[in-house]
């Protein structure tokens, strides 16, 4: 890929994900906290950016400190002339990645301002106004103004799919669950994840940022090493399914319910304070009997890396920091660390 200039025909052919042609314009969302229901209600097709097959991370010649996921998002956005990409302000890397991607005046890009605070009316107001602004952007892309009925229907469908996924999480195979969540973020569908085999492996929690399709093989590697992911709390795991809607409010004021359903249920490391993340983790780590935490992060991700000490102190569990790599699966060095980690927990 280094041989091709970003944006060139060869580059686009190389990076182009293996997807079927879509009837509706694809709107790629770089965060699970940007409501896909809102995009769908506008008649466009939301796609989780992280669900793109062959989304390439880590193959780029990066300058020091650049997050490979953010860089891949930038290059993806520059290459996909037929789609829109919605970045979020959840981290500096993605925020400035948007700056880099939009440097050449691309008008298919949008930066969604996710408030970091969550305990104030001002935070809710920011989220609401950003959603309204996103609506205007979607209309400019050719979307239609959403009717309350349509939005309500989309919320109902996604709410049901999320619930089914969450209900199946504890008993599913870790890879099957990751694939099912990715499917949900790709087209909103629920595909039942296969059940987990009888567990003799060490139960672990996988926590952190984007965990992409090329990384799924890592789950197989972990199982071969004698561990299993009992709680997938990555950005593409159970956390991403936390938005939930108040049916009663949704019936009369679906937009309000959408705002609240997201705003009140964002579970992420970037929030200040990020106590909601810890409150969310506590019962799940206990109920899944996690004996250790694998903290999954991309190079340059300060937000997740800084949590390692706090996770250890809060939950009294060993924490293994594992850096996302370019190759599928764990890779020899990471595999060695993983095996050692699991061995120490047996």
């Amino acid at each position, binding site marked *: 890929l280094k041989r091709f200039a970003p944006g060139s025909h060869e580059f686009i052919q190389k990076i182009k994900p293996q997807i079927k042609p879509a009837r509706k314009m694809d709107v790629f969302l770089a965060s699970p906290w940007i409501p896909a229901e809102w995009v769908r209600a506008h008649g466009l097709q939301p796609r989780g950016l992280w669900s793109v097959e062959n989304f390439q991370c880590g193959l780029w010649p990066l*300058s*020091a*400190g*650049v*997050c490979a996921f*953010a860089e891949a998002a930038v290059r993806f956005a520059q290459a996909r002339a037929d789609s829109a990409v919605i970045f979020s*302000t959840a*981290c*500096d*890397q993605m*925020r*400035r*990645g948007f*700056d*880099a991607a939009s*440097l050449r005046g691309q008008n298919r890009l949008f*930066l969604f*301002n996710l*408030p*970091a*605070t969550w305990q*104030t*009316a*001002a*935070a809710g*107001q*920011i989220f609401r*106004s950003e959603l309204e*602004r996103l609506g*205007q952007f979607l209309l400019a892309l050719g979307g239609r103004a959403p009717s309350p009925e349509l939005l309500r229907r989309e919320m109902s469908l996604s709410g049901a799919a999320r619930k089914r996924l969450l209900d199946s999480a504890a008993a599913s195979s870790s890879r099957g669950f990751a694939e099912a969540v990715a499917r949900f973020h790709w087209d909103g569908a629920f595909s039942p994840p296969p059940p987990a085999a009888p567990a003799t492996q060490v139960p672990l929690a996988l926590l952190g940022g984007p965990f992409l399709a090329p990384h799924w093989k890592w789950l197989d590697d972990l199982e071969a090493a004698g561990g299993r992911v009992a709680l997938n709390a990555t950005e593409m795991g159970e956390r991403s399914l936390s938005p939930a809607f108040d049916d009663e409010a949704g019936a009369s004021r679906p937009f309000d319910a959408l705002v609240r359903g997201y705003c009140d249920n964002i579970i992420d490391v*970037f929030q*200040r*304070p*990020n106590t909601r993340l810890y409150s969310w983790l506590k019962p799940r780590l206990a109920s899944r009997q996690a004996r250790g935490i694998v903290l999954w992060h991309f190079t*340059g*991700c*300060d*937000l997740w*890396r*800084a*949590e*390692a*000490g*706090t996770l250890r*102190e*809060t939950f009294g569990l060993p924490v293994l920091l594992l850096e996302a790599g370019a190759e599928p699966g764990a890779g020899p060095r990471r595999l060695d660390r993983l095996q050692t980690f699991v061995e120490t927990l047996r």
Partner: protein
Amino acid sequence: MNSAPRQLNLDQWDDRYEQLRRDGLREPAYGGPLRRHVVREKDFRLQQLRFDNSPAALRLWNFLLTENQRLHQARAAGHKIVGTMKDLGTVPVMAYALPGLRAFYPDGAWWTPCLMECSDRLLQKAERMGLDASFCPARAMLPALVDGGHFPRPDLLICSSGAVCDDFSAIAQRLEHLGHSILWWEIPRRRRPAAGETACALPGLLAAPQIQVDCVRTELQRVGRALGELAGRTLDDDSLAAGIRAANQVRRRLDSLRRTVYSAPAAPLPALEMLVAEMLAIHFCSDREETIAVLDDLLAEVQSRARRSQFVIGAEAARIFWVNPVADLRAMNLLEELGGRLCGSDFMFSHALDLIPENLPPLEALARSAMADPMVGPTDDRAARIVRECQAGRAEAVAVSRIPGASHCAREGEIIREIVRREIGIPAIEIEIPPVCDAMLPSLASRLRAMVETARSRRAR
């Protein structure tokens, strides 16, 4: 007392100080020879620096290097201490509008490893607290606050969140987990107003949607209430307006200083002193009135030098615009040793140099000022200002100084350099400067020298 402007090392300043004393130098209470900061405070880095030889610069340095003592004295006198983090220039304006409050930036501890040449092991302590060298040197703040060995533990900690650096946000969050409660307030990422949206003019020729400014105003109201509770007195509009006027007195002096120094045919004040002087804008080095006096002295000195055509750095020096503060102060000396001089700067807080509007309700004015923060908005907004100031200062090159581990540095330098090259076609380089840069001096020097030589060679064309 006057002598030709030049830079002195610490040994030379010892002699100079004695001479000034013999000549009747009068100093404020925090005055004294610079050497004592090495002996008493272990500020070993001073031995490697070169300082301007004026009494005004001596006052500036003494003012800077006695800040921790000043804070301890304030605490002993019953003042409440506010640790304000990240916003660089907004919350202190509010805090100093209330009697009995002293605000400072614990972020400033990022210079402690440099000043003490890491002898206090703050960075190593931060690593033991979970923040290794992949984080910005601002991580020194964490052990400094937890141990309480440098500045007093604040009575209230306030930190902006949202469109801020990840590393700083992560460090502050770690601090809170370690038991230091923080009042977080939201600063949204600034965007340009959309068509049909109510727009709001900001300082620095910027604009933002009114809805964003409204959000920040609401957040600052919350901050103001907390400060009022701490002070035992409501922060009303009259007090805040007075605080804004006082902050603007500082900003006006800095504006004059910058214009005088950066537009002069040669440099009447060295780069290092300019960096330190500009830093006074953000929280007045814990004493607003004294900041004004310090800046008055400096301004008088540079105006006098400019009138007499007496300069520290000659007119042949390449005119360099500098972006971002340096983790090692030594780097500013290095630029001049290699034939450069400052003709402009963006030390990450240009919003703290712009006047806060005095013709608006004070909280609205402050919210607009906060929204003009270059780190809060798109990088190309920041680059546009750099381009304007490069043109005004007739810059011949731009140096973007990377802060090791800082999340914003991963990307912004590349964008700024690209825009600078595209808009004004001058060379732009990026260099990374660690807290103590001695080991990197050869490579730093070769990059800076190449920049200076390139800039000079372009003159001949």
